[in-house]
């Protein structure tokens, strides 16, 4: 699944570790989502949407 997580994170000048801490996941998870090797669960996708104040469908697209 394509996503804009890397761009959104970079715009806020957060490292993968910073974002991982805010979402209470591991840095490996953030990296796997950004490289599109892993699709997050619905609760995590909603958490990401809430953190960036964007609808989930604007961050993730099929």
């Amino acid at each position, binding site marked *: 699944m394509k996503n804009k997580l890397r761009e959104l994170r970079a715009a806020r000048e957060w490292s993968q570790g910073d974002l991982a*801490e805010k*979402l*209470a*996941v*591991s840095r*490996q998870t953030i990296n796997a989502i950004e490289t599109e*090797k892993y699709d997050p669960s619905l609760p995590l996708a909603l958490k990401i949407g809430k953190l960036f104040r964007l609808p989930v469908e604007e961050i993730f697209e099929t």
Partner: protein
Amino acid sequence: MDKPNVMEAVQPCSGQYSWKTDLRLNRWFFVAAVIWVGDLALLKQHAEWSPLLKGTLALAPLLPGLMYVWTCVRFIRGLDELQRGIQLEAFLFAAVGTVLVGAAISTLAAQGVSLGGLNHGLGMGATVMVMFTLWLVGGAIANCRYK
């Protein structure tokens, strides 16, 4: 927010290793191993003991073993979702692999073919060793997919 458990905390030389976390996770495994080794020595020296006592002693490591399983379940629940998926894949790989290896060795033993002195199947110690090895292999394979 609560920090998720990380597997690196129990992997020596990972840079995030924590002996406290390792001890919390693996203490029951060491208790089971110590009881198992003690049992082996006792049962070897006292072959005259009743079958009930010998059976109880032989199965004694299973009790701390159950506690170890419970500790592992709690640790895995605390992992973040990707790590949890990786660990579940690794455990599935290890469980299925151990069943296959055990079945193969038992079948060979039934036919009179002994592999490495395993005349009566894998046994408790070898089962743990095979499962642990396969868990490491399964974890490495699953980790590679998400690197």
